[in-house]
């Protein structure tokens, strides 16, 4: 495996190097005082194959033993490297590097190569890049002019002040030491500075690259040589910052720009001015429970200088009279090193030297800070027109302006701001829409619900969730200031907004709207509605209200499956079924996002069965899934819904043209894969599908992928997405799935990013997250296996057969083994024959696991095994749910192959335990797995009987291959499923379709069913089968192979 590491140098950009577990650990050179070639650093050619850049070599100081550097924690070796016997020390090693310029570097940091494990240093640099991107987005950058021996360079530099200084400080402190391992380049402050500068410059240029440039239009022709300032401006948006201009003009430009030199250099003084807004005459009341807006030091306001903290009861709501309220903006000094240390201005003025512990000159500092702040907040001047200013009096207008506009600006400029706590959860003036089912006789008759049902509809003014009475509206309208006390709480009301809101109400008299219109209104973003005030709630009664509130599954009668369905649905599955058919009736796209193991497949098959029972003439449903799941769907459909006519459209022999069209007409359920559907999209899009279902819908999480674009071309009466992880990594994935289900619901992907993804993911804002939940709630049903409502419905142990398909390579290898072994079996008898049968089975099982197990070629895992492909898909879901998993295999070699592969694939450690391990090591591994920080994946290759392993941290068990001995398998399973296990355990047994695995599995199931016969001796009964029967067992059926 390869583990990629990186560091950033001002002159070289992002330097990538890697450890390669395939290389010999020890250096052949003993000259440990001088730098030696790193023995297991990836070769230049290997690096180039992954992230090609400027090749080079650097010396790195790495923790080492005499003969070799230590491994990074991300590097997994099989067998593991013996633990170090001697102490480690820093030694220099020469390492090949690939150096990427900032543009290429940003691309690598945001989009990594598959199959490579990336060390913490890369994640760290990615965090830096993300921070740099955020600075640019917020406009915290300034253009600069850099002069060097070759001429002039126009560049963008970061502007760091206030909270950003704190953030950079935290980033600097967090730097992994390996990022500063180049001798002489070990100052994290400089390294972070250089990296941020380069990243900010590249990102800002990238943003401007496509734009029209910064130069105002000129009349006449462009001169041969631009003036320095024009050339500089032009270079600021060009891909390269270097430009040419007259040296004297450059001097002048540099002179002018020097004024901006000092802005945002990230320096913080020993203290800063802090402004605290309180209501005059109420300093001791609850309103002063100030909270700080800045993210840097939370809670600083509460600890304050220790005064003014009595939390008294809310005083009486004062009504309109209070609109003439007075506010005070207190000036304080806040220590930079200890933000909880707040000194009121009065104390600074009268300081007798007691502040000198941390401030040499508090008066002068306070004055300087106030002077600086007056630049951001000019009205501050009024408060400074006295010898010893302690604060500024504000009327309600001024207070409102301070809260709304000044405070964020001061915060950003590096000053502290303490605002009343109600401001953060303040209630704003908005509109509510309410819809109700009409009670007049005319409509009541058409009681059947539907998209076109008309409902009474009206707009109202509201503050927060409280709809305003006419009296309250009148009171607000009379108020002279934007801060008004209403129902005991402050409300910010802009009179102009209120006026427009009232006007809107008169323009939009109560009317009727269709359910569709109301749903669209509820989903719309306030910016798109064109209402003068934000719409805070859209409420409705009846089914529509339940739909909006996400109460539909409880509201509807659970739907028992139709009689044609051959399984009993659990209560929550019945609710899921009724929810699906309800949304289907309305033609609304539905995302069933139950946790894995809760039976999404069964619910969907029940939906299809019910539909076909009710409407036999319904057109076909198209279901797309990953290749690895086609066999699974076929088998589950055959088992639970045998009356469904299923056609699997995949493989090289799949139908086309008229033959395909005929087949589609005869099918109820058409199964296909994302890859096939993307390829055949022109033909598939010609059919109007009754329904299109995406299983493992995260397959279209990237909205730009071909698959995502293809599926959106499919016309369907109803769309369903099945996924256990609707948001695997990023909210954008949710957008892609929702845009398939209900196109346009969440706006364009760009709008979605700015409205939801960035505020929620980057800034952890709760309001957009709340809104997003509300908007998607009608269309997403997600039940967790830990839900109390579900957990009682669930059996303690869910056993699932996971059907996989062989790859082409596996199939031909399988066939060769069968041919060879059958010949041997035919020509032998007695013990020898028995031995051959068992050997044949072992080999075939190995082929089903992975071709390399038979070939012993130590080649890459790649996508050569259907089981490994499916394993990766399942692990991805398990890890996304934060669960832990045990993976059993009989083959040590398979486990050792999977160990580095899975570690790299999931960027996490995996545990590995095999039969040959000493007891102490085993216990150590078990303890580590059981701990919260332990690895989420545990590979075991042993007959797990009687070893007393307690692995209850896992709630998933995967049997990668079969013992065909329930006792042995159950014993293994019971490692996880034990007394003390509070969660339900899901057990998956991997079976390759069309191979001996499936056939033996069927035989056992039949025998169990027929005679309740427990085959306790595993495989040996197979040796008694006749050669003819054996051939049937071993033979490869035609549906065994994937594409």
């Amino acid at each position: 495996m390869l583990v990629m590491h990186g560091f950033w140098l001002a002159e070289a950009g992002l330097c990538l190097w890697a450890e390669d577990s395939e290389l010999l650990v020890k250096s052949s050179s003993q000259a440990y005082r001088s730098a030696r070639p790193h023995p297991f650093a990836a070769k230049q050619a290997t690096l180039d194959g992954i992230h090609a850049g400027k090749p080079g070599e650097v010396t790195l100081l790495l923790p080492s033993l005499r003969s070799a550097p230590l491994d990074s924690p991300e590097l997994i070796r099989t067998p593991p490297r013996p633990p170090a016997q001697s102490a480690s020390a820093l030694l220099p090693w020469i390492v090949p590097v690939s150096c990427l310029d900032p543009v290429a570097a940003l691309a690598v940091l945001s989009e990594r190569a598959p199959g490579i494990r990336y060390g913490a240093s890369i994640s760290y640099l990615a965090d830096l890049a993300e921070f740099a991107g955020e600075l640019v987005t917020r406009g915290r950058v300034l253009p600069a002019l850099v002069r060097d021996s070759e001429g002039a360079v126009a560049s963008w530099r970061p502007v760091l002040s206030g909270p950003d200084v704190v953030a950079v400080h935290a980033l600097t402190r967090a730097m992994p030491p390996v990022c500063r391992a180049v001798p002489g380049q070990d100052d994290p402050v400089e390294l972070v500075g250089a990296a941020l500068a380069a990243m900010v410059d590249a990102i800002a240029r990238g943003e401007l690259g496509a734009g029209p440039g910064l130069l105002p239009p000129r009349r006449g022709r462009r001169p041969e040589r631009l003036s320095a300032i024009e050339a500089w401006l032009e270079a600021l948006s060009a891909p390269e910052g270097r430009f040419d201009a007259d040296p004297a003009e450059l001097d002048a430009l540099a002179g002018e720009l020097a004024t901006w030199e000092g802005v945002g250099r990230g320096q913080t003084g020993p203290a800063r001015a802090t402004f605290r807004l309180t209501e005059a005459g109420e300093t001791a009341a609850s309103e002063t429970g100030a909270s700080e807006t800045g993210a840097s030091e939370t809670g600083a306001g509460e600890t304050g200088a220790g005064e003014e903290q009595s939390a008294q009861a809310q005083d009486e709501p004062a009504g309109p009279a209070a609109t003439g309220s007075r506010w005070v903006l207190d000036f304080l000094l806040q220590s930079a090193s200890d933000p909880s240390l707040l000194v009121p201005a009065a104390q600074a003025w009268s300081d007798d030297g007691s502040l000198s512990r941390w401030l040499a000159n508090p008066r002068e500092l306070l004055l300087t800070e106030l002077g600086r702040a007056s630049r951001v907040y000019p009205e501050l001047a009024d408060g400074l027109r006295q010898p010893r200013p302690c604060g500024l009096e504000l009327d309600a207008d001024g207070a409102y302006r301070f809260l709304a506009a000044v405070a964020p600006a001061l915060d950003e400029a590096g000053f502290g701001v303490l605002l009343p706590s109600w401001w953060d959860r303040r209630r704003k003036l908005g509109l509510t829409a309410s819809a109700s089912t009409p009670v007049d006789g005319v409509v009541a008759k058409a009681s059947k619900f539907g998209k076109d049902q008309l409902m009474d509809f009206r707009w109202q003014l509201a503050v927060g969730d409280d709809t305003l009475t006419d009296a309250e509206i009148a009171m607000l309208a009379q108020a002279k200031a934007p801060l008004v006390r209403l129902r005991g709480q402050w409300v910010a009301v802009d009179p102009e907004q209120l006026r427009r809101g009232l006007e809107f109400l008169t323009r939009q008299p109560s009317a009727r709207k269709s359910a569709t219109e109301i749903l669209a209104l509820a989903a719309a973003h306030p910016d798109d509605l064109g209402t003068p005030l934000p719409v805070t709630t859209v409420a409705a009664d009846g089914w529509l209200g339940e739909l909006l509130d996400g109460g539909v599954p409880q509201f509807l009668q659970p739907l028992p499956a139709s009689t044609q369905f051959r399984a009993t649905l659990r209560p929550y599955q019945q609710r899921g079924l009724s929810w699906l058919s309800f949304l289907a009736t309305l033609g609304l796209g539905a995302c069933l996002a139950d946790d894995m193991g809760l039976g999404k497949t069964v619910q969907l098959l029940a939906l299809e069965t019910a539909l076909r029972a009710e409407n036999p003439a319904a057109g076909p449903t198209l279901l797309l899934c990953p290749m690895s799941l086609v066999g699974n769907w076929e088998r589950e459909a055959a088992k639970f819904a045998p009356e469904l006519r299923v056609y699997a459209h995949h493989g090289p022999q799949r139908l086309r043209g008229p033959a395909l069209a005929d087949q589609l007409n005869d099918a109820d359920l058409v199964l296909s894969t994302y890859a096939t559907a993307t390829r055949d999209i022109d033909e598939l899009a010609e059919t109007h599908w009754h329904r299109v279902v995406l299983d493992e819908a995260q397959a279209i999480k990237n909205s730009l992928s071909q698959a995502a674009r293809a599926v959106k071309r499919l016309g369907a009466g109803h769309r369903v997405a099945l996924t256990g992880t609707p948001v695997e990594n990023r909210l954008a994935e949710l957008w892609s799935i929702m845009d398939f289900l209900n196109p346009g619901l969440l706006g364009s992907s760009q709008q979605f990013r700015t409205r939801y993804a960035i505020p929620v993911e980057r800034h952890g804002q709760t309001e957009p997250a709340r809104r997003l939940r509300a908007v998607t709630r009608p269309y997403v049903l997600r039940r967790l296996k830990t839900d109390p409502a579900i957990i009682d419905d669930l059996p303690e142990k869910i056993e699932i057969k996971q059907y996989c398909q062989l790859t082409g390579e596996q199939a031909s290898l399988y066939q060769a083994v069968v041919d060879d072994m059958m010949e041997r079996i035919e020509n032998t008898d007695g013990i020898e024959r028995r031995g051959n049968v068992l050997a044949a089975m072992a080999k075939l099982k190995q082929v089903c696991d992975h071709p390399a197990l038979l070939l012993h070629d130590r080649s890459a895992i790649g996508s050569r095994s259907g089981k490994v492909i499916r394993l990766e898909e399942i692990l991805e879901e398990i890890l996304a749910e934060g669960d832990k998993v045990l993976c059993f295999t009989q083959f040590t070699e398979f486990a050792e192959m999977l160990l580095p592969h899975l570690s790299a694939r999931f960027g996490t450690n995996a545990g590995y335990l095999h039969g040959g391990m000493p007891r102490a090591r085993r216990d150590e591994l078990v303890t580590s797995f059981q701990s919260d920080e332990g690895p989420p994946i545990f590979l075991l290759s042993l007959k797990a009987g009687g070893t007393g392993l307690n692995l209850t941290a896992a709630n998933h068990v995967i049997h990668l291959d079969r013992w065909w001995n329930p006792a042995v398998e159950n014993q293994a399973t019971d490692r996880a499923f034990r007394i003390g296990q509070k969660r339900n355990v899901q057990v998956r047994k991997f079976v390759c379709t069309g191979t001996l695995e499936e056939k033996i599995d069927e035989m056992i199931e039949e025998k169990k069913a027929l005679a309740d016969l427990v085959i306790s001796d595993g495989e040996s009964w197979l040796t008694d089968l006749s050669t003819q029967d054996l051939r049937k067992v071993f033979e490869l059926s035609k549906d065994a192979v994937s594409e």
Partner: protein
Amino acid sequence: MSSGWYPPPARPRAVEGGLKARTARGAIGQTWWSERFVSVLEHIGLGNRLERGRNYARRGQVISLDVAAGLVSALVQGSRSRPYRVRIGIRAFGKAEWAKLEAGLAGSAWYAAKLLAGEMPDDIEDVFAVAGLSLFPAAAEELSMDCSCPDYQVPCKHIAAAFYLLAEGFDDDPFTILAWRGRDREDLLAHLQAASPGHQPAADQREQVGQPLAACLESYFSLQAGIPVTSPPVTASDALLGQLPAVSLAVRGRLLPDLLRPAYQAFGAGTASSSAQPAG
């Protein structure tokens, strides 16, 4: 202009490390107070001659410039080997006058606050007017100028160069004007009761953040601390442009902040922070 008997102008000698004028184009003063100073000079008839000093100042011919109470003294390198000595005198206010001024200034923390923040308070001239004084020279007679060069024109280009740099000095530190009038920063602040002796400790007290590498062997490849989630204040992406010190750069009549505004708006609307971080 040159008379027959006077030697033709010689090229001035180059100066290593001279005080170069920052502004190599356009007008000098970037701030209202240095602008005001220059306009006073122009008003009292020195304006045109100042032009002559500009090239000198830009080329860095001024070796040193000292501002003391009532007197600016400068060394300016001309064509001769020995630099010329330039002196510009102004009336320094006396104790009583300053007491009046300081009483006026101390009445409002505004003045000290602005001065300390690097700005001349925009209404400071009112305080001087109340005391019957003027911050800036009101007439040519208030200024005495003198240069050791043989040029008989006053001001000569050496004096002009010194004026030029003086105005720039005012830009950088408004206390300079007051110092010229007789109160240096320390005294003034002390008198305003807003200062005590001693400077601020250096603002940039850089904390030692980089542990020696040898001390981090155990966690060499790992993060050394958590990276907190930040929630930066929400302001418009072009808010910074409104908070910058003024510059007089412009292209075709549009000032630099306005030229840059579209870029900042593009940043705000853009995709800069979209860099994805896929797992693994």
